[in-house]
């Protein structure tokens, strides 16, 4: 009995760590949705770009993880602005669903560009090995803890930016009502680009963290993307605190599900939760009722 409890506690702990990393691309996805008005499936490709950009710096130039994370953010963010300008902006006025499909094509383009350059082989970051820390009966992986800490710091920074700065207010205002924001003098096109930078940057930074924790290949983002959507939908599409909460729920649910399900089906858990929430509580845990 105690064993089972310990096992569940350990899995929940792992789930929180997973959720913390998942929260970053989920925030990116939900932020992009709130401001640009369509589900941007290209987060998967941008996540992979961040992972590879970080991998190059880490393995070829020996940069430590803390220095690589911001670089992954910037690489994916710059690419995000580029796709915003080249793909999304020219399609302005198209139905949101058209933009969503276009974003799938963007993801395909990016992932295949990586495949062209790096092949399908798994690669890992070059990081010092560290032994697990044991507290009571629970094991903590130092790598995972570091990863979760970085994720939490990034989220707090983002939260502060959105809540307490003039720029953050402008972003939230644009998400609420873009034409009203323009009337107030806000450059909404620039805000959309900034959001593309931040949203895709978050995906890129999480790509580095994931890569450091496991291994990378061009489909690293694609494999995660279902969990990212699930986090955003469970939390309430468009809500940033919701994305964080949703990511934790998905992270824990995925880990705990391994008690009864083969671990290959982890990503099916996210899908089931999406269906459940859309059927019974479509606005998610923290989403707003949209009139």
């Amino acid at each position, binding site marked *: 009995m105690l064993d089972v409890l310990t096992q569940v506690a350990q899995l929940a702990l792992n789930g929180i760590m997973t959720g913390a990393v998942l929260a970053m691309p989920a925030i990116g996805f939900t932020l992009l949705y709130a401001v640009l008005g369509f589900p941007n499936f290209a987060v998967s490709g941008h996540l992979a770009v961040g992972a590879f950009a970080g991998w190059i710096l880490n393995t070829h130039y020996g940069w430590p993880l803390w220095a690589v994370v911001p670089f992954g953010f910037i690489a994916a963010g710059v690419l995000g602005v580029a796709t915003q300008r080249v793909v999304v902006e020219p399609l302005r006025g198209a139905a949101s669903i058209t933009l969503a499909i276009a974003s799938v094509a963007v993801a395909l383009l990016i992932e295949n560009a990586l495949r062209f350059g790096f092949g399908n082989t798994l690669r890992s970051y070059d990081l010092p090995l560290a032994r697990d820390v044991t507290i009571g009966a629970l094991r903590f992986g130092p790598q995972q803890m570091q990863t979760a800490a970085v994720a939490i710091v990034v989220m707090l920074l983002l939260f502060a930016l959105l809540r307490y700065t003039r720029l953050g*207010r402008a972003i939230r*205002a644009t998400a609420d009502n873009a034409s009203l924001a323009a009337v107030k*003098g*806000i450059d909404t096109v620039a805000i959309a680009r900034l959001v593309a930078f931040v949203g895709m940057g978050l995906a890129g930074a999480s790509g580095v963290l994931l890569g450091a924790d496991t291994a990378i290949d061009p489909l690293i983002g694609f494999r995660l993307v279902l969990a990212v959507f699930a986090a955003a939908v469970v939390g309430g599409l468009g809500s940033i605190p919701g994305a964080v909460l949703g990511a934790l729920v998905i992270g824990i649910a995925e880990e705990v599900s391994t008690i009864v399900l083969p671990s290959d089906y982890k990503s099916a858990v996210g899908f089931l939760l999406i269906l459940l929430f859309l059927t019974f509580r479509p606005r998610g845990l923290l989403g707003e009722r949209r009139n």
Partner: protein
Amino acid sequence: MEVRDVVAGYGASDEILKGVSLAVGERELVCIIGPNGAGKSTLLKVVAGLLRPRRGTVAFAGNVLTGAPPRQIARAGVAYVAQEQNVFPSLTVRENLLVGSYLHPASAEQRCRSMMERFPVLRERKDRAARTLSGGQRQTLAVAAALMAEPRMLVLDEPSAGLSPKVTEELFATLAGIRAQGVSILMVEQNALAALAVADRAYIFVLGRNEREGAAAAIAADPEIRRVFLGG
């Protein structure tokens, strides 16, 4: 503000405005009235930069602003308040005011305080999300947020829509006060008699064209206009 021969519409083929002109002088309160489909709101959208006119010009304080983006028009000193969805629902009352003076960040906090002094309903609810406000409170917030931009001219689309007569009266009294402080006002109003009572001059639009114009009092007194446009 000088609008000349503006032609505009939404689709590729339709023309809602078929050539309208008007002028608003400094410290003037001008009101546009007319039946539904006359193009009143469409003209305000053109003035605010939300709709590019097909022909004609819009000039303000000597600058030609025809087809300029809303941002540039805001910068020129024109503040537009739409009929609906004129506040940011998920932002708090205070945040709505601060975004109102987005172009004047230095004085934003101080103006925000004085605006809340002027409108106590807003001060009492300053940390509530705007979506929780009642219709009248929301309209007050929309006007206050527009004033945060330190505008030289206020453009209002049906400010009294959906408000009770008492709240409408208060709102028009507020507008008269704003005008007295040197802000010119252009508004479209369904509630024509109440609007004419506070306006200096008025225009009547019919089917996208100018029909009549004149001093507000004269228009309100004209028996034919009363019969056709003012329902009495």
